[in-house]
């Protein structure tokens, strides 16, 4: 199966990224991160840096897109980079455009995060909740319900280590993986390709 070559995607060793996922643009993926097939990570208006231990499930969309009122060809628009911390979970079908996401967050199925939201740590955005305000969500917040009610929980969600280990073992049995591309400082004639 021909691999879609994406020369600017930097996949660290130890990350499990399926070939059927769509990664476009300048994307860095940390080790121990699992990207399921049909997940989409699109860096249009700037690079995306994803930390380690993240779980990005099917049909999740992480996109660094241009704000709505700016055309892609406008001059003088600085590319803002999107950072995603460690141990986050992006469940099936969620859409995340938030530029800053901390650690240990869970974004449940079909949730929608706007560009100006800043998730700190331990937050849970419930299923089908839309958060497109311009604010910093405090730590350990749970957003749930059809009215997107909020409450604080006393403990942060546990990192999905068991799930991650299981997936890292099982996914390569059934899917082809994108090869890890190590970021090297010295240029060599062949691109350094390591598994």
């Amino acid at each position, binding site marked *: 199966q021909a691999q879609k070559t994406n020369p600017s995607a930097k996949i660290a060793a130890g990350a499990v990224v399926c070939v059927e996922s769509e990664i476009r643009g300048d994307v860095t993926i940390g080790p121990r991160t699992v990207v399921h097939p049909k997940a989409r990570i699109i860096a249009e208006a700037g690079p995306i840096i994803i930390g380690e231990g993240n779980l990005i499930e099917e049909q999740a969309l992480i996109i660094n897109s241009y704000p709505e009122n700016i055309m892609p060809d406008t001059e003088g628009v600085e590319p803002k980079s999107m950072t995603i911390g460690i141990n986050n979970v992006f469940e099936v079908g969620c859409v995340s455009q938030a530029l800053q996401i901390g650690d240990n967050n869970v974004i449940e199925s079909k949730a929608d995060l706007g560009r100006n939201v800043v998730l700190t740590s331990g937050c*849970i955005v*419930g299923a089908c909740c839309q958060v497109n305000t311009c604010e910093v969500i405090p730590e350990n*917040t*749970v957003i*749930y*319900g059809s009215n997107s*009610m*909020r*409450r*604080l*929980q*006393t*403990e942060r*969600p546990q990192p999905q280590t068991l799930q991650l280990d299981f997936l890292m073992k099982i996914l390569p049995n059934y899917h082809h993986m994108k090869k890890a591309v190590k970021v090297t400082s010295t240029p060599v004639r062949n691109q350094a390709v390591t598994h």
Partner: protein
Amino acid sequence: MSQRWVELRRREMASLLQPERVLYLVHGEKKIRSPLSQLYFCRYCSELRSLECVSHEVDSHYCPSCLENMPSAEAKLKKNRCANCFDCPCCMHTLSTRATNIPAPLPDDPTKTAMKKAYYLACGFCRWTSRDVGMADKSVASGGWQEPENPHTQRINKLIEYYQQLAQREKLERDRKKLARRRPFMPLAFSEKYGLGTRLQRTRPGAPITSLAGLSLKEGEDQKEINIEPAQALDEVEPLPEDCYTRPINLPEGTTLRQRLLQPDFQPAGASQLHPKHKHLLIKRSLRCRKCEHNLSKPEFNPTSIKFKIQLVAVSYIPEVRIMSIPNLRFQKESQVLLTLTNPVENITHVTLVACEEGDPEDINSTAKVMVPIKELVLAGKDAAAEYDELAEPQDFQDDPDVVAFRKSNKIGFFIKVVPQREGLGDVTVSFKIRHDFRNLAAPIRPSEEGDASTEAIWLTHHVELNLGPLAP
């Protein structure tokens, strides 16, 4: 503007099968217009019944999450709450029990620790856990969770007892007065016998309870007098905190009105005091026709079963009209609307449609004139085995192609002509009467003189209203 209309039309076509498009009129105490799927048919009275003209009776209580049946007496004792299941105080979802392993010292050897299971309650929807309010983890999976005790329980119970006694005393006095008045007219024994039936006595709301059975010969017995202290009015009220107006509000910390009022005992203002409550029980109810006292709907006793012991729903007796397609409707222009009629019974049904006359008191909603087919429509019986029977000859009904569009087993499609009479916004509604024959299988077969054993058909008429949507722009 036309794009929006195209979108509206598309949505409208998808919604032609919505039940609220076709309404049947029910003659009861109130004239109710309701889709056929929500109506019942009393085959002893041969009339349509809606939920408002039947009496509802509680059949059984059950818990919606653990599906445990509970006899009514036990339910009343437990205040209609399940013993095992809890509701999340935050989002009212059902709580589930989760287990964690915690190291705990072994009872034999305090220095060594072993993994013991600890259970806590957690909500899958809003991620509330019992640890949020400080409830300790329990070592048993179920039965360890207690609701907090209401500090006013004793006072409330005492008040209830006192008022119950007072009410009984007042009832006795009232009955005694009534009896004293009635004695010249009728002896005591007769008035009970010729009084109204107990069921109707019970279901009449607001009527005074006239049963004289409460009048017992035990009046002389001394009932224990219960005294209560009157409530004390306090002059001093706790003052508001000083920073009441200046302190910034922390929304996630406070409780919403709904969360607060679901716990009427405590009504906590802070989210950290929201304790889980036991889950409310649901009931299965049976419906009874008010005129002939026959059961119209009786569910099965088992909570897991959705079937009915008695199910006299209207869709299995009355032919159902459905809208199939609507052309563009224009003001004062005639258009043809395609409707379908489905026959729910197994014998052939003859249906005649009659347009409403001028000044018909039931015809209050129609905004268009309608021309219905004059001829009688014949519907084939519902034959469940028809699709497997390949050798069956298709029945020849000789349909008029101007009237009948198609015929398919027990369903036909037919045309009506509609002329909208009202311009502007608002839906086009038409109404007409359906007259069909009904064979009552419930009535006892009377041996007729000719020795004819077939049941006689009676003709029923229903008033039907259709909502055809807005006019085309």
